[in-house]
């Protein structure tokens, strides 16, 4: 099977610091992959490179068989790459519903009926069902007309994922989707991931390995900008180098 995403010697330098160092990461169609690693190991930077927020200092990114290294972020979304952010990113100045409708605007051109100027008809016509479905999936359908700024952090996280879903991605990149959530909310997000993972590929960055180990089929461990080890989650976690770099730190974290 050909790779959905693959990177060749992908590198990002910030003034002397090499945040991502010659990374060769690959993901297959429909695969659920996890990325773990200590703080500052380059996980978010890798996502930023994949989604096109930064140009890489060196290396290439291939997506669906095309070289997308120089393609701007919005076009990558159009090709099927969606992402969420470590710190939730939704539009506080819009309502929940408007947030979702905006995410369907890129489909506008496919639908001849929606060459509209006004937002209100857009609500009715543009893939309204899809928006509703995404909202129901994350359990926010009752809050559709609420101001986004009134949502709790957990609800915003859910909305952000719903937006990702309504973009109809081929791959969804989730940057620490569980951080800052209560145990109950974490259960909700994991449940959601289980329900949608059959539709597209997923890459999940996470600190709490135990939470995602049951979901991911492939685990990559990053350290100091490099992929230290990757493969079957159980095996990766048994790797002595991983234990030293990751569990060692985790224990420190736990004891403090």
């Amino acid at each position, binding site marked *: 099977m050909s790779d959905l995403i693959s990177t060749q010697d992908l590198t990002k330098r910030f003034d002397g610091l090499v945040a991502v160092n010659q990374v060769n990461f690959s993901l297959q169609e429909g695969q659920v992959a996890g990325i773990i690693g200590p703080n500052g190991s380059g996980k978010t930077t890798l996502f930023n490179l994949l*989604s096109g*927020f930064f140009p890489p200092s060196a290396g290439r990114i291939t997506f669906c068989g095309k070289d997308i290294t120089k393609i*701007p*972020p*919005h*076009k990558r*979304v*159009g090709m099927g790459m*969606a*992402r969420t952010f470590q710190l939730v*990113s*939704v*539009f*506080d*100045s*819009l309502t929940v519903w*408007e947030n979702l*409708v*905006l*995410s369907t*605007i*890129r489909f506008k051109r496919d639908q001849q009926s929606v060459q*509209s*100027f*006004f*937002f*209100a008809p*857009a609500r009715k016509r543009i893939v309204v069902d899809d928006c509703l479905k995404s909202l129901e999936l994350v359990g926010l359908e009752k809050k559709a007309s609420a101001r986004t700024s009134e949502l709790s952090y957990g609800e915003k996280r859910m909305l952000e994922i719903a*937006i990702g879903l309504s*973009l109809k991605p081929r791959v969804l990149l989730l940057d620490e989707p569980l951080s800052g959530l209560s145990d109950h909310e974490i259960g909700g997000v994991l449940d959601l991931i289980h329900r949608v993972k059959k539709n597209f590929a997923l890459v999940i960055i996470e600190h709490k390995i135990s939470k995602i180990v049951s979901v991911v089929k492939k685990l990559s461990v990053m350290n100091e900008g490099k992929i230290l080890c990757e493969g079957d989650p159980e095996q990766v976690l048994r790797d002595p180098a991983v234990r030293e770099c990751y569990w060692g730190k985790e224990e420190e974290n736990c004891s403090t």
Partner: protein
Amino acid sequence: MIHTIVYGFTIGAILYFIAIGLSLTFGMMRVINFAHTLTYTLGVYMLVSLGALFKGYFVIAAMIAVVVVIPISYLIERCIIRRLYGESLDHTFIATFAIALIGVDTIKWIWGVLPYPLSDPIGEYLTIGGLTLPIYRIVIVMIAILLFIGLEFFFRKSIVGKIVVAALEDRDGVGCLGIDVDHYFSIVFMMGSALAALGGVLYAPISSVHPYMGLSILLLCFAVVIVGGMGNLRGTFVSALALGMIMAVTARYWSQGAETMVFIVMAIVLIFRPIDI
């Protein structure tokens, strides 16, 4: 005193027309756009030439003048402003200031340095209860209010409006929805430029027309944008009218101090609410 109030509102309305474009350009793209003076002044000079052509038909001349500015602003955005996205603020400042200066010289070259006299196109006065007010000034204020209502509607109800509101909050976030922000911004940029030209065209008959007219008013408009909040459209409206009023009232008692007062107010606002860029 009523006189002063009407004059204050007139100036406020003009400042509002020009400040919208500045505020949106800064709010969406983080570009400080000095080239805005050029579209403003250009609108006025177009009016001067067209006014000679369409003698007596001020409205037609004014409308064409505003429309002519749109393709010019498109070129400015395409060729220069677009390259400044993501650059540091001082770079955007230097580049757009250069455009403004080139614009001033081009205008001098085409139209000369001497001021052009334009007269009040309505020339009628309204007398209520012993007060005589020039109708033209009242018309300007009315147009500004209509524009405010129109823009509120645009930003609340239209798709482009919603995208702009979202982009003012988080431009990269809009890109993450697969929307080409630059494309929508160029629409907004042309809209802002046309409004600046409209401001110029409306103000020209009651002020003086000379190549540098844009530079002085632009500084006032930056004050409006800073006081109103960058990218805050309602704030821009309120601060434009308030600062216009401050200018008119100050001018009544101390005519040289009118503009100074605006910057004093701006400085006070900055002390209590520093800009975070």
